[in-house]
Structures are given as C-alpha cells and as structure tokens.
C-alpha cells in the first residue's frame, strides 16, 4: 500500500525511480515491484479489510491477503504517527485498538501462524501496545514521547529519502546473503540508539519462540517450507488405455462442456424446460410476438394502422354523429 506515488510524481526528477540513498545505487522501484493499493485506495478501511479478509466478492486476488494457518506475515508501516495512532493520507488515523482488534480476528480465523509488525513513525511503540494475540512479534522505531527522524536529505531530488530506522534495517539486510543464518535477535539488537536518535522497542511477550533461534528468513525473503517428492505415482496403464478408450470419448464431450462457461449450459437447459410447460394462451401470444418481430418495417405497419383507423372511426362514429346532431335535438327541443 503506497499512499503517495513518489516514483511517478510530477516533481520527481528521476521518473519511475525511488532511491533509499543519495548515492542512487539501489532503485527501490525496480522491475519486480508490485504495488496493490495506490493513492486514494490507501485508507484505514481498506487496510483493515486486507488484514481481516472481509472484501466484496468482486475484489481480485491480487488485492487480497491470501494467507492460511501456516503463513508468516510481515507488516511494515511507516509515515507519521503519534500516541496510539498512525496517520493515513493526512486525514484519517489508524488507532491502536483497531489494529489490535483486526489482529485478534485474524488469529481467530487462523490467517497467520506468525506475524512481525515493524513500525517506523514517531512514538511507534504505542501503536502495538494493545495487542493480545499469540504469535505476534512487534518492533517500533521509537518509544512514547520520542520522535523518529529521517536519515539524510538528497539535495538532488530535494526530499529526505529514507528514515533512520528503515535505513539501518536495509543496511543490515544488504550485508546478508541467502545462506547466512542471521537470527532475529541480531536484527533487533543491531539498532544503535545514538545513531537512530530514538530508542527502538520490541515486544516479545506474545511470541513463543526464542529470538536467537528464529532466522530472519522466517519473515523476510519469501522462503517456503518444502517436502521432497519421493516417487512418481505410476500406474500400469498400458492395458488401461485400450480399456478406457470408450468411456473416454464420452468424458471428452463432458470436458468440452466443462470448458464452456457454466451459465450458458444452465440457460439452455432451463429454456427447453420452459417451452414444454407453456399454456396455449402464452404459446399463441409468443407466436404473435414472433410474427411481429418478423415484420421488418414497423413504420409502415403503423402507417397502415392509422390509415385503417380513420374509416373504422367513421363507421363507428357515424351513427353517434347522426344521433347527436339530428335526432337528439329533435327529442330534446
């Protein structure tokens, strides 16, 4: 979720590029970066919907958190914040009790096994002060009453490019390669309060495992649990192919139907059913309507109708005319 599209901002001197350092060595907006919620879609409501999974039915899979009970989730939040809140889009706030409630619902629905929350705002540690769910680890860049500061200003681009907490986190990971077994405690203790100008605070009371034993790849690096496949599942199919040829032809037809969109097949079957059940009146009415539809020039029909109407009117109205003009007055007067 990115509220501001800094890479494509009109005032960005380096279009489609965002750097974390003024040496411009690392482009954080590379080819593989996917942003699911941009701009005005970044709201507190959408954020809580992503966490709890309560979307409308039409929301695509790329905008959902498709986690299950074995997933490890990394939640990283940065921006402006304060005592028990985080600011969204300069107009909304995410309260710490809303976040705690969302995490509690996630845990009840088994949407995660372990969750790491990293917050880089002023007074960050207050944002996760109300969490109660087990399996959650949280670290904030500053404690209550402290500010978090940006790292340095890039005078070329004209803005500060990175916050201190984020800068030192990135520096930690750039030093690692895939096969290092760095633990989470080494990450958490790598932050120097003098350099950060704030005190990082992390809470481990809800997390069962010891931080020294947990590797950073538990949350970072998109690492999967794998099981080797021992053997293929082979069947003695040489005899089977000849035996099953006949039924397969039928099944192929079924497959073709299976490839069609399901609703079409259902409509056809329902239409045929309706025809059988119609009563004579509706059948005649439908036949009449079909005939009407076959007439190509409706305008001419209307004109014919008008032309036919006048004589009809005359025939009907003539006796009435007679009565009203000649016969009635004589009777009345």
């Amino acid at each position, binding site marked *: 979720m990115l509220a501001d599209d800094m890479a494509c901002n009109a005032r960005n001197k380096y279009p489609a590029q965002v750097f974390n350092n003024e040496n411009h060595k690392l482009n954080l907006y590379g080819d*593989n970066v996917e942003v699911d919620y941009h701009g005005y879609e970044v709201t*507190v*409501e959408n954020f*809580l*919907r992503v966490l*709890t*999974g*309560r*979307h*409308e*039915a039409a*929301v*695509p*899979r*790329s905008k*959902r958190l498709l986690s*299950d*009970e*074995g997933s490890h989730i990394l939640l990283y939040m940065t921006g402006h914040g304060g005592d028990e809140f985080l600011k969204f889009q300069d107009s909304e706030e995410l309260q710490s009790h*809303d976040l705690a*409630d*969302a995490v509690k*619902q996630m845990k*009840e*629905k*088994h949407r995660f096994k372990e969750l790491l929350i990293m917050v880089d705002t002023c007074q960050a540690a207050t944002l996760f002060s109300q969490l109660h769910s087990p399996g959650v680890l949280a670290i904030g860049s500053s404690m209550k009453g402290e500010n978090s500061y940006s790292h340095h200003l890039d005078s070329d681009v004209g803005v500060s490019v990175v916050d201190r907490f984020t800068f030192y986190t990135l520096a930690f990971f750039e030093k690692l390669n*895939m*096969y290092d077994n760095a633990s989470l405690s080494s990450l958490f203790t790598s932050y120097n309060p003098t350099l950060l100008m704030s005190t990082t605070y992390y809470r481990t009371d809800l997390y069962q495992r010891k931080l020294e034993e947990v590797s950073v*790849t538990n949350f970072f*690096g*998109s*690492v*999967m*649990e*794998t*099981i*080797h*496949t*021992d*053997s*293929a*599942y*082979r*069947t*003695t*199919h040489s*005899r*089977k192919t000849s035996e*099953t040829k006949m039924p*397969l032809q039928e*099944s*192929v037809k*079924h*497959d073709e139907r299976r490839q069609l969109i399901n609703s079409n097949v259902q409509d056809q079957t329902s239409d045929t059913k309706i025809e059988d059940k119609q009563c004579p009146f509706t059948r005649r009415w439908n036949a009449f309507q079909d005939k009407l539809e076959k007439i190509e020039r409706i305008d001419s029909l209307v004109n014919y109708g008008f032309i036919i109407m006048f004589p009809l009117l005359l025939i009907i109205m003539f006796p009435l005319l007679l009565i009203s003009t000649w016969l009635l007055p004589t009777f009345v007067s």
Partner: protein
Amino acid sequence: MSEISPEVPDNRQDAPSHVDPNSTRITKPGVKRLVLTLSVLFSLVLGFPFLWKSVEIYRSSLPFGEISEMESNPSLSFPCRFQAVFINFNSNPSPNHLQLSILDKITELTSNSSQCGACANDLALSVTVDSISSCTQTHPTDNSNYYRCGAISAVDFDFSNDDDDGVDELLESVLGVKNVYSVVVVNGGGEGIRAVVGKYRHAWIVGSVEEEEEESVLVSRVAEIFVKMFVNGGTENGLIHGEFMPVGADRRIVLSFNLLNAEPNDWVYDWDFQRVDETLLAPIIKVLGPIANISVESQVLYHTPKSSFSYWDEKWKSYIFSTKDLPFFVNSNEWHLDTSIAAGGRSKILQFVVYVPSAKECPLSLLLPTGEISKTNGFISPMWGGVVVWNPPGCLNSETNHPSRHTMSREDLQAVFEVFMGQFRQLFGLKSNNLYIGASGTYHLLPSGKGFTEWELDVLSRQFACFNLHSCATTLGSLSRLSLPRMIIMDEIGKLVQFSLEAAKLAQSNASLGDNESSAVSSGQARSLAEDAFFHPSIMSISYYSFEHCFAIYSPFFLPVSMHVLLAALREWKRYKQEKAKYTAWKAKVKVES
C-alpha cells in the same frame, strides 16, 4: 378598572393594608404556567423511549444456543463395517475366536490415535472361514452385503506370477460392496507372507501358514490393514490439520500448470497440454468431485531464472542443488505464477511448475541428504503446489548458440505428469509411493489410474468432512463472539448462519448413515456458508455505530431545547413553591388573627 373592595371600618382591615408582598399573598397562586411547562417536559421525557428505539442497532438474531452447542461437539461418527475371509485353512480355526482377536487388535491400534471419523462408536466385524470341506461364519446383523460361502477358492489365486491386477478385479467382482471393507487371507503360495491392498475396498494376504502361532501374526496384519489403511489412509498425520486440506472456502481448487523456460535464448520448450488434460487429468477431477470443484489452467512462461545457486559435480556429471536450496528455489519476483483470472477470491490455487533449466545449469539434479540423487527431481510446498525440474535430453553435449523451439515428447510429458500425480497426492496428505511399511510388515499398494484408490477417496472424504465441520464450528463460534456490541448484523448474515447450521446437521446425519460423499459435500457447504457469514464485508469495526457517533448526531437537536425546557420547568416549580408558601403564610396569619 380594578376592583377595590369598599373600606370596611374594622380593626381587622389594618392588617391587609400592611401586607408585605414579598412574604404573603392573598390569592392562591396560579398553576397554569406550571402545568404548561411540566406538560412540555413530560412530553419530551415520554418521547425518549421512542427515540431510543428508533436509533437502535439492527442486529439480526443469531442462534447463539445452537452455535455453542455445535462448537462443543463438532464431530462426525462414521460406521465401520469390516469383514475378514480366511480361505484354505485346513486347521479350521473358529471364526468367533478369530473375530475376538481381530477386534482386540483393532481397539489396541485405534486407542492411541484419536482421529476424527474413526470407527469410535460403530464397528462391526464379520469373519468367515472357508475351506474345501466346510464354511463357518460369525453372524453379522446384515447378511446381504457379506461374503457368501464358496465365492472364492484358493485356485483363484495364481501363485506363480504376481498378477495383482487380475486378482484385484476378481475380488472386486465377488466382494464389491460399498461401505464394507474386506481382507481375504489365503493359505498357500510360496514362502513368507505377502500383503497387497487393492484399488477398491479390499486387500489380500497370501502366505503359507501351517502352525497355530502364525495365526496371531495374520491377525495382527489383518487388524493393521483395517486400521492403518482403510481407516487412516496410510498416513500418520493428525486429523484437523489445515496443512493438507488444500480446498478453498468456496469448495473450489484451481490447478495451475506452468512450464517455465529459464533462459529462452538457449532453448524454448512447449507442451501438448490439451491431450494431457483430457486423458490424465479428467478422471482425477471427476473422482474428486464430492470433495472439491476442480478447474485446470496452464501457461508457458519465459525468462524465469531461479534464485538459488547450483554447482558442478564431477561424480554425478551434473549441476547439483541440495535440499537446503529448496526453500529458496521458487523465485517469487520473477515467476509470475498467480495470474489466474478464473479463480475467485476464496478459491485455492495449487501451482504445478515444470522448470527447464538454462544451458549453463543443465542437467540440474537434486541431491538428497542421504547422498543420493533424487529420482523425481521434484518437491512440494504444502498448500502451495509442486515443482519438478526437467532437464532437456542431451543438454550436456549439445552446443546451442541460437534459440531452438521444441515440444516435450509424449514420454517425457507422461513421466512429468506421473511426478505431478505423486505431488498432488502428497498435497492431500497421502504418500506418493506404493509401499507401506507398518509395524507388522510391509504392504504393497496398488496404484489406480484415477490417481486415488476408492478406499483412499473414502479416507479423504471422511477427513475433509471432519475438517470442514470443525472449521465451520469455530467460524460460527468466532462470529457469535465478535466483541462489537454496536455492530450491525444484517439479515443476510443471519440466514447464512442458519443455512450453515442446517448443512452441518445434514452432514452429521449423513455421516452416521455411512454416506461419505454426501457428508463431505454438505460439510463443505456448511463451511463455505459459515465463511461467507464471517467474512461478510459489512462487518467492519471502523464503520460500526459507536455511542459517541450517536450522541454527536442527536445532541444538537435535543440538548439545547431540553435544557431550556428543564430550566423553565424548574423555575416555574420554584416560583410556585414560593407563592404557595406566601399564601399559606397569609392564611396562617388570618387564622391567628381571627
């Protein structure tokens, strides 16, 4: 004109002329103003309950009692019907004795595992001893489904060649009855005991048994087949394990098959997926119908390198990657696998990937921790899918400088799909190989062309039904406990909960009748409806109607008005009391003077 009473020369008249208006008054104080203000106040107070009712949050009533009842007991009990047939035992053991010993062994084996769906309450075993001379049976309650004497004889088992399929078909024609599991024990054949589990719902043990003590060996093997195979499915997993239930909340699975060309500049491979879909996948999808609604998609991707590294090994003459690299193999940055448009938000997608390495890394083989090269070159990640590394033929020797297009040959495609079948079974918690090593011996499992044998499908249906029901119960329980008292619960959610409870009850009754398939279907519906209710987009804490919100809306209307009315009533009341006091004081004075 004011009325002034005429002066009456009386001593008493001196007193009224010196009356102090601040402390006495002559006439009774009027009540009109008091009545007016009090009536306005009372009408305001009377209207308050109506206002309260009109701003009440609409909460559809959830059946909390039923939900908590189901949550405390979300179990299914399936009946188990077993039969054992002993053929060609000349020592003529007594069937009742055999029945008792088998039942003992069964209860011993089921006591330590508490799997849902196991034959906890309803277990029936029938034993038949059939030899040339006589045939004795224990008396089952329901005769029609069980074995008829003389249907099988020892000559049907051709001991010279291991024609397991033929024996399987023969037994199926004799014993093929739904919901009854059979084990046929035949005395004869060569040395040792050979146990085979067929593709339907029976198994057979062939061995030459002459002495009495080997009878207990046979009994334990029979019991192990019943419990470990037919009830537990050949796995040791716990039951309510979400890790091996890859079915989405809407009972749909999408199988996404991807052919990945790591370096198209070296070679590009294509495959004839349509044929594979029709011949190999269609029967499997049909057979898994009661469990999930499966659809299949496929794509071919290019420029998809992997993110782990490999090294050249001279001994194996190939590039090696080890099991330590497996967690890093899938390169989520470059592999754009999840591009399905057919899958809905709640479906489960399983990715099956064929990885064709580049010329720099070909052939690529997986080294196991035991020091051997993997036969399949593949691995799975639970709830995600599977990967197979397929090396193009002759890649070590070929010198390709230009990209060449090839199609995977039929045999290669067949081999790859056999590995996929094994991985698919692994994803469902079953084993991909054909041998089970139990406590009493090894068992050969016959593979089925549909990917799953009928007894395995029964096990899957039962486990899915149990898991779905458990999940439904916990979801409904969480829904009823959502601690947001001012949250709007719409009628739709109430209806979904009701339908879910009905489907769950139907699943429980179907299970007790022994109908695995419909029980799996209804429990799947129950879970799906419960999840629809819980994940209904209208239940959002941010939009619930808080008390502060209500107060902020209605107070500008009523607070100023009510303040004024209250003050006025209080003032009038005070004035009335004052005037009344003055009047009573005057009356008292008059009384004293008179």
